[in-house]
């Protein structure tokens, strides 16, 4: 097996192992995040979400490139 292929395989293996939640969990979280974040920001991308095990805790990492933050007045009460 070529090195590049080994690297991609091991990277995805490790990512899966480090991620402590199932794909469904992340997908549902992303849908809810989009709903909430749309109230505050304009964006076209899908938020990148990872839940990584850090010892006996988990690190939730959300990253999203937004176009701009909405004006405060547009946030529904």
């Amino acid at each position, binding site marked *: 097996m*070529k*090195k590049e292929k080994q*690297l991609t395989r091991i990277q995805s*293996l*490790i990512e899966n192992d480090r991620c402590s939640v199932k794909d469904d969990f992340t997908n549902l979280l992303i849908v809810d995040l989009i709903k909430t974040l749309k109230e505050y920001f304009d964006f076209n991308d899908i938020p990148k979400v990872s839940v990584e095990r*850090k010892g*006996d805790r988990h690190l939730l990492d959300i990253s999203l490139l937004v176009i701009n933050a909405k004006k405060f007045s547009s946030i529904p009460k």
Partner: protein
Amino acid sequence: MARKIVITSGKGGVGKTTVTANLGGALANLGERVALIDVDLGLNNLDVVMGVENKIAYDMQDILEGRCRIKQALVEDREKKNLFILPSGNLSPNSSISGQQIKLIIEGISDTFDYVLIDCPAGIDIGFHRAVSCADEAIVIATPSLTSLRDADKVITVLKSYALDSIGLVVNRARGDLMMSEKMMMPSEIESLLKTELVGVIPEEDCVFLTGGYPLFKNSDSYKAYKILAQNVHKKTKKIFDVTSKYSGFFGSIRRSIKKSI
């Protein structure tokens, strides 16, 4: 006060015992007083790799049951006067000996030694925790295979829940010829994959088999690689043995094709 370093890996058979023996030997060559402790209860092999199995008078069980003092159980290396091994004896892997008890034994010799290297069993169950709980630092051994790297990553995750002073990575059985032909991951790639500081690279060599694992031939590449590893551990230098240098350039390409044909 000795530095207490556990040598671990997750996956079995990747070289923990061989690294424990040879890093111990190389640290002793630097003039350090070193004790090697076999905490792979039941599958203890350190005494065999060190070639001292016939010199064992007492083991860990004898110490714990008061049949001997700790120092009586230490077996001196065949060559070096400043290198000792503490054999675990024929205990069951499920033995009731606790990490705390082994820790007490280690504390008992901590003033007499500069380094205590702890040979850990494979896996991440009770035996692993028993070994890690005795240490302040860890060295994770991985070979460049997918399964070994995956297990190393899991072990590193578990090690992070211990309050260790440092976690270092040793890539064992590295093949310079395969790295040159892009068929094996480079140590630096493994280091960034596992996000753990690389402290040593040991080449795959027949001499490890031919010597029974320890002591290695003094003119071998692995002997040199262990010397560099020991310096990195002892002096916190960051030199890494280059396994590819032998296979680069004109003569290197000839060596590579010879290696390929066998």
